[in-house]
């Protein structure tokens, strides 16, 4: 069977599976819609969290980004996993004990203020919308590359599928489809990685193959070979990287803290039964995520070495078929600057003749390694699973922010359970349409902003939640001003140094403390903490009743069910 047929087959089967699960797990109450009824097992929640978390970017782009940035790519590996330690130790158990439906729920009640809730809703919406647009685009891109349909048609097909199970099933439907999606995506990622590791090093475990010797009888370590190839062509040694240490530090911290502050991740811990389940499912989630995250750097090393060996200083006319295929998609660009018919891939931009898109490292890897057609099709199904699962999780946060936090708790507290459920479904539908619109007409800043969503989450939620749990005397004045100053500062820095909304983008040498916009979330978070602590000193203490709530969430027993209020 051809790649095309395999792809239709595998994508068709997985989509049918997702829809089947959605019909089986329809939500009948708001509690089921927001938190899947609160009875999800730690294993299922761990798998759902892992799928929720690993987006199109993790699946398709990350290995490629690492392949082209070497050591610098470590910021994503440590940043996007280390956040789970913070979640498990500092947030998840207490938020579960608190037992509500959304992150703004916690902020609103702990800080006894509608203003705090509304500020939190705005932060949740800003973070989630920037993130979800990228996912819908990812769905479209996978469709167009593997099934030769138009990107826009791809986005619309993706919208319909997500709409179906997010609107019908709410959190309950999303949870169980995410469990299936995790299985699909991890299988799809591991199979080619294992094949390639075997081919290149003879070791079936990619994590070990990465540090092994090459299979060509030369007894050279793979990483030494790659370092040699890179420096020969004028790049930094693969294991050294090019970024400043302070920037690496700041970006890693911002990604870790941002991960722990992302509402669509936090809300998953509301769905388990007991506090101890929240801790355990954070561990399971990270274990399942780590499988992909420790494989990705290995894939990066294999793919980069393979690519350099295949193309560097080779004749263009002798390139294999995959080279021409990917040239057609525009992901590979060859421009014979010195007209010698040979591909020069060099660090020096004026002489370099080959431009390679990051995404190709995962998407074309099976072809480069000459793997069978079904493996190539599997990658397409995996990429779609990764994009759809993350999109659905984000859409749920958006719809519950609107129906629960705004309509139920601010504008119309008397709304009936049925009415609220309808409001949630309508909000989810609107959110899908808006996300799809951004997927089809991506504003230029979307790609830039997705990476910054973490900075925004770090600068807004993280300090407010941590202080709410660990500092009994933190009051609403402190928390609200901290959040506003934190997210405001982050938005300002983004606008100035990344988006160029405040006139021309200044040179990198103007960065504050040498920290890039991607890493600035750490600074904005620190400022949030400081502002919150100072303001709380000069304003009245929180009411005794609130201080008692804070003491109560520190004790794990009696978590019970999420209460309506």
């Amino acid at each position: 069977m051809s790649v095309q047929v395999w792809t239709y087959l595998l994508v068709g089967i997985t989509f049918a599976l997702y829809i089947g699960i959605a019909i089986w797990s329809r939500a009948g109450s708001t509690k089921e819609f927001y938190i899947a009824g609160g009875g999800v097992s730690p294993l299922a929640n761990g798998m759902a969290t892992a799928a929720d978390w690993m987006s199109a970017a993790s699946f398709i782009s990350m290995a490629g980004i690492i392949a082209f940035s070497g050591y610098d790519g470590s910021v994503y590996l440590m940043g996007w996993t280390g956040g789970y330690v913070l979640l498990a130790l500092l947030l998840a158990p207490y938020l579960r004990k608190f037992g509500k439906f959304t992150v703004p729920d916690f902020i609103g009640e702990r800080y006894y203020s509608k203003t705090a809730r509304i500020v939190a809703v705005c932060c949740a919406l800003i973070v989630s919308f920037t993130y979800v647009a990228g996912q819908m685009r990812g769905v479209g891109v996978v469709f167009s590359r593997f099934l030769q349909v138009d990107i826009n048609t791809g986005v619309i097909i993706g919208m319909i599928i997500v709409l179906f199970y997010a609107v019908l099933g709410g959190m309950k439907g999303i949870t169980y489809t995410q469990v299936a999606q995790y299985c699909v995506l991890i299988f799809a990622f591991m199979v080619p990685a294992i094949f390639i590791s075997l081919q290149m090093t003879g070791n079936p475990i990619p994590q070990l193959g990465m540090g092994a010797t090459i299979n060509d009888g030369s007894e050279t370590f793979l990483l030494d070979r790659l370092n040699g190839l890179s420096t020969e062509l004028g790049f930094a040694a693969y294991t050294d990287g090019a970024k400043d240490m302070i920037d690496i530090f700041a970006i890693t911290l911002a990604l870790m803290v941002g991960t722990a502050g992302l509402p669509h991740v936090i809300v998953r811990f509301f769905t388990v039964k007991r506090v101890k389940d929240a801790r355990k499912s954070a561990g399971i989630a990270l274990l399942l995520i780590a499988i992909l995250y420790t494989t990705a750097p290995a894939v990066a090393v294999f793919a980069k070495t393979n690519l350099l060996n295949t193309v560097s200083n080779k004749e263009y006319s002798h390139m294999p078929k995959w080279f021409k295929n990917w040239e057609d998609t525009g992901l590979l660009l060859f421009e014979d600057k010195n007209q010698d018919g040979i591909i020069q891939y060099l660090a020096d931009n004026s002489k370099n003749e080959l431009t390679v898109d990051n995404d190709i490292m995962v998407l074309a890897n099976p072809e480069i390694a000459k793997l069978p057609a079904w493996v190539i099709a599997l990658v397409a199904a995996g990429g779609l699973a990764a994009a759809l699962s993350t999109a659905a999780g984000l859409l749920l946060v958006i719809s519950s922010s609107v129906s629960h936090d705004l309509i139920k708790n601010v504008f119309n507290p008397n709304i009936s359970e049925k009415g609220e459920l309808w409001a949630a479904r309508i909000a989810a539908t609107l959110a899908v349409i808006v996300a799809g619109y951004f997927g089809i007409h991506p504003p230029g800043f979307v790609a830039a902003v997705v990476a910054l969503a973490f900075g925004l989450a770090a600068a807004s939620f993280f300090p407010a939640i941590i202080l709410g749990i660990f500092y009994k005397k933190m009051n609403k004045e402190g928390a609200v001003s901290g959040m506003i100053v934190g997210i405001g500062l982050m938005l300002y820095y983004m606008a100035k140094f990344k988006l160029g909304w405040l006139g021309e983008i200044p040179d990198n040498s103007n960065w504050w403390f040498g920290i890039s916009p991607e890493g600035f979330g750490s600074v904005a978070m620190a400022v949030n903490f400081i502002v919150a602590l100072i303001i709380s000193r000069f304003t009245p203490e929180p009411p005794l009743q609130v201080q008692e709530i804070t003491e109560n969430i520190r004790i794990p027993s009696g978590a019970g069910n999420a209460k309506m209020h």
Partner: protein
Amino acid sequence: MSDQQKKATAYWKKNIRYVLVLLAIWFTVSFGAGILLKDALNSFKIGGFQLGFWFAQQGAIYVFVVLIFVYVRLMNKLDKKYGYNE
């Protein structure tokens, strides 16, 4: 302070101790070994890996997973000891 409160305070103190120790390890393997001390550690090699690079792209992640499961175990024990388990 009532007995209930005393118990709760003691439990919380113990919890904070665990968290601080585990976070110290969290910081050491990632920001320490993977970033600040990376160049020094790179002079050691295990297999084909330079040690600092290995921590940044592999080791830190393994330790993170272990840390969470250690915390789960410690807290399950602590919950039992203080009668907060369910």
